Structure formats: structure tokens, C-alpha cells
């Protein structure tokens, strides 16, 4: 089947779900695309110089350098990983290239009861810069599905990577992404996680190892938790070199589901800086949010801090907006949308608007 056929064969509902996780089929403002359904490749294409995007198998078969990356971050972290994976993507931004439009990738779960297990490699070479938006989503037919995604990020010296993951699952899908990033000298790694749709459970705890001096990492998450969902979302940064910096920001709204917001920053070198911020809003009576900020240091000359706040929307704020003529519902919606401010994600304007639109449509239905 040709790529065009495979695209055309996507059911309308599936297309909508895939779009709701950030995929733009027109590719007008994208630098490259990758779409995998269950374990089969739908399409992979680079539209920009300096960008390679292909199925992981192909990369491992033909490129010894790619094979060298496979599992390297797990070895560096002293952790094991599941080798029984099938599919996943390989994205490489060549040295010095700054890719203007975002690269998009989507892992789509279609078959009922399918266990999708992928291994992704993302390499940003020295001085290169890229934005990647990756959507993971499930078809309405994919009940009882499981998604296990292993991702390894290599952000080399002086490189910049903004990686935004949008999850758009179904009520009965279980999701377990596992990822490790290694960040070199003067490099920046921003990892954003947006999950607005119902899901049975998500467990993730991505880790970044900042091994180069002055490396920086930010993990930002925006989570809307629906009744029946359990989202155990954390991130960990190990500050391994001097003058490295980390920030972990989490914004969770419970519409009745349970969110566990973890964050761990470890100072394993001198003169490092880290900040954790967790804010949670519980809208109905029965939602639950559990914030677990952790900091560890082996040294004295470090600057680690955290702040956390959980609760309902302040009545005074609603009243203030009503005093300006907003109805109570409008006031709540304005505050909730402000709370889930995508400004923290560091995205270019177009992508920011896309995510805002996703939020608006989900919130309209959810509130």
C-alpha cells in the first residue's frame, strides 16, 4: 500500500484523535512527520535539510552510529530496559542545523487489546536546535490497549531541544513511557507533557542526566485528570556537572481523577541550581492530587528549592471576576484556563496556539 493509501485509509474518527494529539496532516508548518499505527509504520518523512526521521529498525540496520545510541542512556544511568520492542522512531538533527518548524511524530494505538511497545531515539547534534511535538493516542476501538514507550534523548553540546508530548488516550488504555535524556555542555533540554483526555493509568518518570557544564533541563507538565484516571507523573533531573540548572513545573487539575505529581532534583555537583513547582487544583469533591517534591544534594554549594500548593479555586477570585460581570461558570473557566497556561512550555507561537486550542476544546467539554 502506498503512503497516500495508508493515509486515506485512516478512519475519520481516528484522524480526529490523531489530530487531537498534535498531528497536522497538512504538514504546512512542520519540518517532518512520523506516524506509526500499532507496530506498523504509516509514514516517515523529513521536509527539512539537516533532519533525519525514520523507523528505528531502518536506522539501526543501516547506521552503526544510530546503533551506538541504542540503550546508551540506560547504560549511563545504570538501568535496564525492555528489549522486546517493536517499532518507534529515530530522529536526528544534524550538527549546527536549526530546524524552523516543529517535527511531528505520532504513535497510534488501533487494535483492541494491542500491546504497543516502541523504542525511540532522538539525537540533536552539537549546536543544533529543534522542536518536536509527539502525540500518542488511541483509537476508539483500542480498548484494553497498552502503550509502552521507551525514549532516549541525546542533546549534545550547545544543542537545544524542546520536546512536547501530547497524550490523547481512551478511558481503558494503560500507558507507561520510560525515558532518559543526556544533556551536554551548554545544551538545553525542555520536556513538556500535556495530557488532557481520559486514560486508565499513566505512569511515567522521565530522567535527565545533565553531564555537561552549564547544561539546563526543564520538565513541564499540564495534566487534566478525569474521573477514574490515575496519573502518576514525575520527572527526575540529576545535576552531574557544575553550573547545571533544572526546573520541574507541574500543573494538575483533577476533575475527579487521581494525580501523583512527583519531582526529584539531585545535586551531584557543586554550584548547581534546581527548582520544583507543583500546583494542583481540585474541582469536584472527590478528586485527589498528591504532590511529592524531592531534593537531594551531596554538596553544600547548591541552590535547590521547591514550592507546592494544592486546593480548590479561591472563592475570592471567582467573586472578583463576577464583580466584573463574568458568570460563576465563566469565572471558573477563565481561572482554570489561566492555571493551565501553556506559556510555561517555551513553545513557538504557532505551536502554543495549537496546544491552547486543544486545551480550550477539552476544557469546554470537561467543565
Amino acid at each position, binding site marked *: 500500500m502506498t503512503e497516500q493509501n495508508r493515509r486515506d485509509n485512516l478512519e475519520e474518527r481516528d484522524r480526529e484523535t490523531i489530530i487531537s494529539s498534535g498531528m497536522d496532516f497538512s504538514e504546512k508548518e512542520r519540518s517532518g512527520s512520523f506516524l506509526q499505527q500499532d507496530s506498523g509504520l504509516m509514514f516517515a518523512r523529513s521536509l527539512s535539510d539537516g533532519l533525519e526521521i525514520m523507523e528505528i529498525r531502518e536506522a539501526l540496520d543501516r547506521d552503526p552510529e544510530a546503533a551506538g545510541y541504542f540503550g546508551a542512556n540506560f547504560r549511563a544511568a545504570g538501568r535496564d530496559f525492555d528489549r522486546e520492542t517493536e517499532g518507534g522512531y529515530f530522529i536526528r538533527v544534524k550538527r549546527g542545523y536549526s530546524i524552523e518548524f516543529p517535527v511531528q511524530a505520532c504513535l497510534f494505538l488501533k487494535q483492541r487489546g494491542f500491546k504497543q511497545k516502541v523504542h525511540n531515539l532522538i539525537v540533536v547534534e552539537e549546536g543544533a536546535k529543534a522542536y518536536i511535538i509527539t502525540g500518542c493516542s488511541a483509537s476508539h476501538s483500542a480498548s484494553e490497549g497498552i502503550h509502552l514507550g521507551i525514549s532516549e534523548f541525546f542533546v549534545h553540546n550547545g544543542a537545544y531541544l524542546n520536546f512536547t508530548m501530547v497524550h490523547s488516550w481512551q478511558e481503558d488504555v494503560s500507558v507507561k513511557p520510560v525515558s532518559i535524556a543526556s544533556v551536554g555542555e551548554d545544551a538545553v533540554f525542555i520536556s513538556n507533557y500535556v495530557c488532557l483526555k481520559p486514560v486508565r493509568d499513566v505512569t511515567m518518570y522521565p530522567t535527565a542526566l545533565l553531564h555537561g557544564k552549564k547544561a539546563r533541563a526543564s520538565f513541564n507538565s499540564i495534566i487534566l485528570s478525569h474521573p477514574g484516571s490515575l496519573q502518576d507523573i514525575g520527572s527526575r533531573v540529576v545535576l552531574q556537572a557544575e553550573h547545571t540548572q533544572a526546573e520541574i513545573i507541574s500543573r494538575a487539575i483533577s476533575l475527579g481523577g487521581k494525580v501523583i505529581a512527583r519531582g526529584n532534583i539531585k545535586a551531584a555537583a557543586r554550584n548547581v541550581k534546581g527548582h520544583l513547582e507543583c500546583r494542583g487544583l481540585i474541582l469536584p469533591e472527590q478528586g485527589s492530587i498528591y504532590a511529592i517534591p524531592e531534593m537531594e544534594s551531596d554538596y553544600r554549594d547548591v541552590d535547590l528549592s521547591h514550592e507546592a500548593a494544592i486546593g480548590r479555586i479561591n472563592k475570592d477570585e471567582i467573586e472578583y471576576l*463576577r464583580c466584573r*460581570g463574568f458568570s460563576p461558570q465563566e469565572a471558573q473557566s477563565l481561572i482554570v484556563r489561566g492555571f493551565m497556561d501553556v506559556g510555561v512550555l517555551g513553545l513557538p507561537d504557532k505551536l502554543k496556539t495549537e496546544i491552547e486550542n486543544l486545551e480550550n476544546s477539552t476544557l469546554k467539554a470537561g467543565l
Partner: protein
Amino acid sequence: MMLEVKDLSVDISGQHILQGVSMHIRKGEVVVLFGPNGSGKSTLLKALMGFEGYSVTTGEILLKGVKIDGLPMEERVKLGIGLMYQHPPQVRGVKLAQIAGRLNADASLVGTMAEKLSLSAHLQRDINMGFSGGEMKRSELFQLILQDPDLLLLDEPESGVDLENISVMGRVLNDYLKNEGKSALIITHTGYILDYIDAKKGCVMIDGRMWCVGRPKEIFENIRNRGYDKCIGCDDRAKSAR
């Protein structure tokens, strides 16, 4: 008549705060409300506005002849009443520009007013987050003017504001009140605002009751020279205001 308050009693958490307050404000009239701390002035303003927890136990409130007690706050706003907070809350994630745009669709007016009140740089900031005392007050006046109410309720508009900014705010407020039919009820302790606006009537509230009515500058001078104790002795009781 802009506002008629008839025999209004208000409880907060079962405590009687206002007791049988009556007053009126004519169209185009500016009334200044004096009174010691805790006398019930802010309670009167919040009860007029319809804040939650301010229960009206007796009496009624008429705005332009329409009974408004019992209406939700946003309905009262639609009928033309607006409040400038004494201590506005911080609202994280909601930008001043978002509220301004909602209050008034005229983008050029929003821009001009923001400039007049030195708030252009604040439009894209979360409301009151990190605002100084003066900035909060200017932002309150800014919103109120964009809202364009017929009856303005101002709760200590000048408290915490330096003299230079009081003059800016006073002029903006005075310009607004010159518009046809605009009325205001203003609480002041310092009296500074009286230098900028043309208020012909003042009242004194003590212990939840309205006491005397007179010329605001005279009342203010009296309070300043003799204190509120002597002010109660004044024969000119609230009755005459009815």
C-alpha cells in the same frame, strides 16, 4: 433616583453589621461616606454589590428603581453598578488584558485608558500578581472605567497611593464623573480624593448606622478637628437624608 437604600440591615455570619441604614443618591450625584474603621462602610458597599455572605435581613436596595437585593452580582453589574475594591485579590493566570477586553470591546479606549493610568505594561500580567499598592488601585480604577457603570462604588480609592498617583487617579475619576448621569459613593479616610472630585454630599456611618449628612469638606474638617465622637453629637441626623 440612582440609588435608594431603605432601612437596610445586613448580617455577616450571624453578626449584625448594618442596622436600618437608609440613604439615597441622585443621578449625577457624588456622595462621600465617612466613618471609623469597622463602622460598616465596606459592608454597605459589598451588600450593594451582592457579595456572598452579606445577608440582607431587612430593607431593600433599588438601583434606578429596580430592586437589586437578591440578584446575583453579575446581574447587578449588568444593571450598571460597579465596585472598586479596597484590597483586590491576586488572580493567577488571568491577565489584566483579558478582563479589560471583556469589560469594553473598544480596544482603542482600553489602550488610551491603560496609558493614562500607566498600566500599558501591566496588561499582559496576571491580575495583581506582584502589583504595588498604587498599581492595584490604578488597575481597579482602569477596570471600573472600562466597565462604564452608572453608579461607582469606590472603597478607599486613594489608600496606599502616593500623592502623584492620587492626582492622576483623581483627574481620571473626575473626568469620568462629568459624564451625564454618572453617580458615585466613595469611602475615604484621608480625604485627598475630595480635592479632585465635585462631591456635594457626605454621610457619616458609625456602628452600622448612618449618622449625619452634610457638605463633605465640612464633615471631613469636623472629623479631623474633633474626631468621630463629637461627630455623633451632631444634630443633623441621617433622617434628614431620607
